[in-house]
């Protein structure tokens, strides 16, 4: 049996190599979106959080005539082409540069950007400390209930519960995150991305959770038929937390898919 630390180290090394490989690889064409990953739960979840989760509905085939790719993606790529890439300061990547890192255009080396696997910060109840306001405490408890419902496969019920969390405490980023997760499970990928934006804006200095946000964002992009953006999001997630299994697994699958001759 490997110890937790060893596992994390291995996972971190794998993630580092993945980021390195993707950074070096030429841009690959994508033919079809991959099925969503089987688990989007945070790494090192508590036992009850690893309950089987029904797979989300299969993503639709990318069809840009029916579903235009968001402008922001195009603009970002445009910026990449027109701007000369400026390497970020060593060990401290700016947000802008990380956003611009597309397939084959990652400016960062694994050594410079991949953080070690972060300790598990997924417990919401652990965040209820004596200084927490009653609203935040109630909101966190409801979020935790919503999370459990999601883990049990009841996304519709979870959604109802989670909508309560933001009504009680609009500053609770985890409520928004799990709302995004519930929407993802129900096939509302665009809604999920919107909730992730809000979650991200309300997260403060929490790389573990930011990594979760990016990983789920990657899942949504993949489901929307935008694998390149999915890949960018997964890499961003791994840069923040190399122990994010969702992102690591998804990247491996993306890589395998790209290498597959049938594709």
């Amino acid at each position: 049996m490997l110890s937790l630390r060893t596992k994390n180290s291995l996972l971190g090394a794998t993630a580092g190599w993945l980021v390195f490989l993707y950074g070096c690889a030429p841009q690959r064409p994508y033919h079809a979106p991959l099925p969503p990953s089987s688990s989007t739960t945070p790494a090192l979840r508590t036992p009850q959080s690893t309950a089987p989760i029904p797979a989300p509905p299969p993503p639709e085939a990318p069809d840009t005539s029916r579903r235009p790719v968001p402008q922001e993606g195009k603009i970002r790529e445009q910026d990449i082409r027109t701007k000369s890439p400026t390497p970020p300061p060593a060990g401290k990547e700016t947000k802008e540069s990380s956003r611009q890192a597309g397939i084959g255009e990652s400016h960062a080396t694994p050594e410079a950007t991949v953080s070690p696997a972060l300790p598990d910060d997924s417990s919401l109840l652990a965040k209820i400390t004596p200084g927490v306001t009653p609203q935040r405490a109630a909101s966190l408890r409801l979020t935790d209930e919503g999370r459990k419902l999601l883990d049990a496969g009841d996304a519709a019920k979870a959604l109802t519960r989670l909508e309560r969390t933001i009504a009680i405490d609009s500053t609770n980023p985890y409520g928004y995150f799990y709302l995004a997760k519930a929407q993802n499970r129900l096939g509302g990928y665009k809604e999920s991305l919107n909730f992730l934006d809000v979650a991200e804006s309300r997260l403060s200095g929490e790389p573990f959770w930011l990594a979760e946000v990016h990983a789920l964002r990657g899942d949504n992009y993949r489901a929307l038929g935008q694998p390149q953006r999915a890949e960018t999001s997964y890499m961003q997630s791994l840069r923040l937390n190399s122990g994010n299994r969702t992102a690591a697994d998804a990247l491996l699958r993306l890589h395998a898919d790209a290498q597959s001759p049938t594709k």
Partner: protein
Amino acid sequence: MLKSKLRIFSISLVTLLVITSSGLVFGAWYLKQLEDTVTKRFEGTKWIFPSKIYSDSYLLYVGISLRLDDLAEKLRRLGYFESQGAPKARGEYRISRSDGSVEIYLHDFEYPTEQLKGMPVRIVLQGTTVARIENLATGQEMFHLELEPELVTGLYERIWQERTVVKLADVPPLVTKAILAVEDERFFSHHGIDPIGIMRAMWVNLRNMSFQQGGSTLTQQLMKNFFLTDERTMSRKIPEALMALIAERKYSKETILENYLNEIYLGQKGSQGIFGVWEAAQFYFAKPLSDLTVGETALLAGLVRAPNRLSPYRSAELATKRRNVVLAKLLDDRIITRKQYDAALREKLPQRALVKVTNDAPFYVDYLRRELDENYSSAVLNKEGLRIFSGLDLQLQRIAERALVEGLKKLEAAHPSLRRHSTDDGLEGAIVVLRPQTGEIKAMVGGRNYQKSQFNRVFQAKRQPGSVFKPFVYLAALMYGGQSGAQYTPDSVLNDSPFTWSYDGQNWQPTNYNNEYFGAVTFRRALENSLNSATSRLAQDVGIRRVRDIAQRLGIQSSLPAVPSLALGSAEVTPLEVAVAFSTLANGGVRARPLAVRNVMDQNTRLLEKRDVRNEPVINPQLAYRMNELLKGVLDRGTGAAARRFGFTRPAAGKTGTTNDYKDAWFVGYTPDLLAVVWVGFDGPRKIGLSGAEAALPIWTDFMKSATASMPVTDFIAPAVEPESAPAGKCGPFSREGEPPAEPCPPAVQSTRSAESL
């Protein structure tokens, strides 16, 4: 002679034959018609069920502010009644003021996504804060508790028939026997009509020389309720009797009895008619039929004769008298024992206060109905018993209505010129309340008096917003900068002096309030004091199209012509649009779609529709935060400062609005958790001659003071990081899907954003 007689005889005979055969044919046809009618009713849809509209549920959690009296009032409205001892049955509660606790035996409630089972709970308060919640059945501590939503109103055509259908097997035998004993004791031995009963009734009527008794059997009563009217005439009695005979021939006694027990009218609760024994047991005793005592059963059976006159809610004396008559009959017929009889006589009548469904939110219901009409026909809504769950908060609704009505009265008292000139020319107003995070419409008052005018000014009246529009100019300036290359910050200096804006060969000259100009003013002060000239100059520099873009992005859907006067709010919008747009600011740049309908369930508790919270980030959260900080200044130092003088002290942002012809007065204001828009004006062209600060702000303040009294004090929080796809406008890397191609950001804006986001 003989021939003539024979001829007459034969003609008479033929005539008689024709008449007889015609009569027989007609009679047969008539009976067939009656039979078809009876069959159709028995085998088709027997009853219609009105749809019901519910408010939002109420979530209690440890740490929430709550007054004991408010909770008691809430429970009363939900149909709970106070018990002397510890609550033992669903729907009972007990308040212990000495230790500040409330014990409640919760109702069962079927939600769209889950079913809540009733259970006994205890809520302990420390002062006005919930300190502990406990499940009394298990002894476990709970951290939150959901009280079921309130019934707001029903949707129905003529009358609201409140009915829950039960099977005969589910009706306790004593209930059936008691009703049969007093209404039709020979039910199981007659064939639809009871000659003995009719003779008895005729004798009584002759003796009294008036129509006292009908002698109708239970089957006849059912036929009358199903098909006929209440009039006591032979023309009604004959088809009633014929139909009873047909029904008895075609259907079993049990089927007829079951239909009767579900059909029978047993009381009135405001606009709701109480039909059927199950519903009556709930209405009078708040318990299922199986839990009724002998006394309660007798009372229920006695009500059949005259439900309203004999109602315990109307006359305890008459109800007791009638109950005792029924009990005596049950004793005589040996249905109950002497011991049961004696015990039943000692039972007390239900002493609950009658809580009527009064529809305290008629404007909200109208709005909701419009939303529902998109997916459901009137027939479905009025007859198929849908359960519609809304985002309505009835407490906020009542506060909003009171604030508006009283606020308008005060205005009329202080300004007699505002009083009604003619019958249709009264001062009007509207309030709409939103929760910015979810977009739920929590309250809506579309006018002063729904009985007089159902015109809903919240979403049907398009009015000029005046200065309420100005924040969009300032937001556009912060976002895009000026076309001159100027970068704007709250401390930028603007020129507030008279000027002329020339466009399309025309000249437009905005003027300040009282023609007072302040020269060089800061960006912040120009907004706080709502300076027209400085704002117009700013709009000119930013570009009116960009101002329009921002307004639309935030949530304004009305057509906005890109003309200079748009900057000062010349384009007409509805209060609801204004509410959505400012909610986007309150929610950190995230627009939530407005929600009135949340869920729709059918009669079989199948979820037909669920409207989720939809959030869409439309402006950069940093910019939204900056605008909120600027608009807080309006309340703290600017045109909305009166709110502070009126005692509203919690962190809030807002903006006054007055149109330049003084026809419309607005105030939009919000805390991070609650937003309200108030509009005051006349429906016609009449001017009110008051500013938004004078007419709308006092109403808003009154509402917000009460509405937020039990809410925690919160402030706008600066966003932690800039989200990956946070939109910054048409410029820069974050333009959103479906928008025109990106344009480069002015350098100043880029630097501002990077300074903020890093």
